[in-house]
């Protein structure tokens, strides 16, 4: 059997069938839907584990890929070809991505069993999650932008339904609508980009796009004089901006926290938002050819820094997480922009793992903190504190993840983020344009360390601020659904899983031979058009044919393809970058420690220094105000009013009323004529019609059979005329 059918297809089909079956059984039995959904995702995880091992450890070489397709619909006419294919494109990157999606997804499913068990609509929640997971897998498997867009929109829908899951909460509905509409902004551009690629090269498959870019076939000019490749890249990048909550469309992600915490973990932290980054990674040649990398880097840097500053002042624990998600996504986009393609993807995976763990830990905390007066769960950090003794396991998990996100050595965040920052620094040494990017990136790293430890100190250390709440909190005991997913995720925040050296950057090498086994760098490569020149598409149900290009197994090239001098320079810069980021991370942690743990000086010290800036941060830089109050209410409504004024004041008054006057005059003239001449004719016509109708009335008997006879006679008469009339 074909490898795609035996191994890859079940990964997407299991959750999808779980969704279909679950959608039917959920109204009968909520628990059955939960069971089906969880079983399906775990099965899907096992399959993707197998595919992962096949691809990443052995069986297939580094630049091997599977590309199978089938015709989705074919509506070509004789003159114009219009065929839309759907297919699977699978390589090492897909394998890693797939393992991340299903792995994190199944752990979150397990955790959700704990978190959602008291909810009456728990089955619905799991059904949505199944649909979401299958759409995400479909997105990763897609071989072209069009089917990717389809799955992209399905995920948008799932996000919408899950944000508004607590249907009784008023804000949830508004937040879900906001998320949906904001991402739609990006998607419109995305669709435009797809169409522009389609019209230029007649295909939207990745492989065809890479090939066209390599061969220089992608050279149209749009109406405004912008090269088509730039336009297409920019438009598709807008999709990333919407989905991955980049500046300036980042406003929806904090509001998305209205959803249940596990779905926030799955959708708004780990997987869905990284779909945008995944898209950008896939179309990297397009961004590169369009000369967009600077813009991408700036968008990422601004997002990373801006979101980090906003996270400083949040008091809601989930809001801190939301802003840190935006900030980390900014890092990924920044990485793509500065050419740290590999590191951006590594950061995507690392972030997915530690952010899922962080969110689940938040869920674990929120679920336990139950306010007995208002019967609601507490999310405010101002009412927490001292929870370390009550929840030791959650505390340890969160500590690991906080180390990871802050960029402490030995953890995954250090390995990946440091490579991105190192590359940013390298680019900054080469050209002045990238100096602000590097500065923003390092500042955001400092802020990240600061606000994450602020969160830790406020939540777990010090005296409990709400004694009543603290005493009602139960002591945490090890439970499979609550803690095991957290512990597994926390284990994978260790840097060793991402790099051959313990700290990354080759400082402490575990595998000293060959400069360490940097499996991420050796296995996943930037897409290069020249690898696809001899590409032949394969239909489904054919045996796997290895592509005819030379397959090679990955080996680590310490010079990254550069010459000796450049490589030396690059390594030196990366080394300085690593040292800088360690210093920055620890200084952020130290500042946080002295402010929130030792209380050497109060946070009000900063607030009082820059009150205006503090206010701006509390109001999210007035983005919501700008979008809703100004853009929608003032500008759009103003435009509306202007049009209404034109309609009522000018058009109605002069054109319509003037026309009325003209009409009145005409009317008088016409009336004379009418009374004298026309009425005669009218009377005659009326008389004729009346007579005729009384004749024809006989036919309108209402009897069906009479009508039938008439029809038959008419048809037969017609045929008879044709036959005998000699026509």
């Amino acid at each position, binding site marked *: 059997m074909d490898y795609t059918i035996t191994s890859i297809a079940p990964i997407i089909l299991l959750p999808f069938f779980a969704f279909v079956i679950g959608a039917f059984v959920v109204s009968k039995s909520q628990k059955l839907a939960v069971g089906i959904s969880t079983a399906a995702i775990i099965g899907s995880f096992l399959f993707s584990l197998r595919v992962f091992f096949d691809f990443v450890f052995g069986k297939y070489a580094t630049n091997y890929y599977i590309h199978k397709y089938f015709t989705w619909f074919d509506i070509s006419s004789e003159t114009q070809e219009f065929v839309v294919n759907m297919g699977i494109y699978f390589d090492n990157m897909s394998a890693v991505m797939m393992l991340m999606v299903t792995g994190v997804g199944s752990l979150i499913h397990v955790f959700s069993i704990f978190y959602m068990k008291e909810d009456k609509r728990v089955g619905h929640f799991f059904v949505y999650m199944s649909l979401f997971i299958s759409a995400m897998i479909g997105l990763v498997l897609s071989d072209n932008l069009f089917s990717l867009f389809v799955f992209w929109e399905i995920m948008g829908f799932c996000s919408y339904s899950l944000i508004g899951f607590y249907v009784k909460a008023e804000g949830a509905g508004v937040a879900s609508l906001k998320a949906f509409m904001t991402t739609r902004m990006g998607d419109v551009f995305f669709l435009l980009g797809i169409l522009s690629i389609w019209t230029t090269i007649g295909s939207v498959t990745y492989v065809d796009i890479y090939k066209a870019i390599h061969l220089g076939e992608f050279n149209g000019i749009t109406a405004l004089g912008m090269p088509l490749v730039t336009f297409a890249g920019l438009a598709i990048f807008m999709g990333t901006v919407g989905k991955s909550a980049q500046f300036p469309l980042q406003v929806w992600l904090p509001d998305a926290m209205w959803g249940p915490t596990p779905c926030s973990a799955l959708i708004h932290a780990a997987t869905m938002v990284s779909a945008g980054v995944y898209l950008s990674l896939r179309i990297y040649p397009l961004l590169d050819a369009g000369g967009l990398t600077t813009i991408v880097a700036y968008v990422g840097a601004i997002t990373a820094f801006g979101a980090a500053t906003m996270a400083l002042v949040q008091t809601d624990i989930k809001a801190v997480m939301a802003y840190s998600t935006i900030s980390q996504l900014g890092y990924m986009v920044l990485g793509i922009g500065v050419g740290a393609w590999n590191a951006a993807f590594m950061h995507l995976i690392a972030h997915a793992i530690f952010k899922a763990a962080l969110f689940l830990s938040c869920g674990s905390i929120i679920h336990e903190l139950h306010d007995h007066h208002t019967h609601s769960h507490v999310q405010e950090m101002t009412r927490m504190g001292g929870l370390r003794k009550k929840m030791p396991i959650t505390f340890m998990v969160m500590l690991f993840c906080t180390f990871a996100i802050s960029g402490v050595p030995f953890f995954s965040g250090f390995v990946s983020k440091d490579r991105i920052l190192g590359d940013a620094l390298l680019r900054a040494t080469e050209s002045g344009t990238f100096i602000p990017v590097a500065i923003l990136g390092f500042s955001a790293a400092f802020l990240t360390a600061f606000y994450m430890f602020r969160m830790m100190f406020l939540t777990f250390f010090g005296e409990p601020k709400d004694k009543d709440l603290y005493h009602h909190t139960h002591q945490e005991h090890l439970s499979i659904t609550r803690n095991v997913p957290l512990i597994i995720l926390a284990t994978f925040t260790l840097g060793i899983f991402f790099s051959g050296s313990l700290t990354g950057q080759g400082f402490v090498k575990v595998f000293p031979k060959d400069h360490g086994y940097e499996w991420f760098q050796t296995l996943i490569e930037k897409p290069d058009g020249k690898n696809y020149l001899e590409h032949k598409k394969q239909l489904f149900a054919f045996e796997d044919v290895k592509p005819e290009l030379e397959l090679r197994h990955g080996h680590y090239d310490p010079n990254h393809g550069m010459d000796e001098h450049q490589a030396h320079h690059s390594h030196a810069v990366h080394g300085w970058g690593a040292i800088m980021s360690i210093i920055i991370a620890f200084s952020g942690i130290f500042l946080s420690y002295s402010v929130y743990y030792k209380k050497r000086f109060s946070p009000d010290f900063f607030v009082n220094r820059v009150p205006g800036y503090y206010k701006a941060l509390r109001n999210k830089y007035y983005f919501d105000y700008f979008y809703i109050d100004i853009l929608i209410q003032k500008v759009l409504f103003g435009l509306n009013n202007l049009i209404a004024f034109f309609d009522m004041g000018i058009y109605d008054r002069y054109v319509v009323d003037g026309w009325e006057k003209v009409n009145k005059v005409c009317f008088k003239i016409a009336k004379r004529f009418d009374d004298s001449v026309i009425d005669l004719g009218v009377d005659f016509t009326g008389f004729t019609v009346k007579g005729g109708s009384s004749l024809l009335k006989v036919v309108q008997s209402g009897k069906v059979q009479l009508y039938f006879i008439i029809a038959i006679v008419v*048809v*037969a008469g017609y045929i008879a005329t044709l*036959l005998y009339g000699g026509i």
Partner: protein
Amino acid sequence: MFGTILFICSAIFTICGAVMVAVSKNVIHASIYLLISLIGVAGLYLTLGADFVAVTQLVVYVGGVVILMLFAIMLTGGADLKVVSRYGFTKDPGMGSLKTYVIGGLTSLFMAIVTGKLIYNAVINTTTENQLNMENSVEQTVSKIGTLLVTKHVLAFEISSILLLGALVGAAIIARPVKLGDE
């Protein structure tokens, strides 16, 4: 030889059944005669070498449609309902009057003459080449029809499935029991 006998029997069944549908007084009898006529048509299909169509005819029409008709007749009272006409005669509601038969006969005769001329012209113009090729070929058509249905005629196939679904839902909605106070 067998084919000829089958053809003659089927033709007699078909025509006699059809005529009896027109003239039998009882609606139930009429539908039984329709059944006979349809079985005759199925026999004609067999003589034409259309085995699959013949079986479908039997299954769908004889097994499905006519049974449905019988149910409907029973549900609507059918033959039991007598009405008294203006002139005091007892009319069988299933039957028309002499007048309707005369009108119907004339109309169908007119149609038959015209159509007969049409098919006469058509038969004269038809080439007989294929006729020779197909003369004594007895073969199974099922697999070929199956292939045709999912390749050349796949759109019509899908549309007919939607039609059937629509008819099913529509029929269920139209004939649903009337609730009190609904009308």
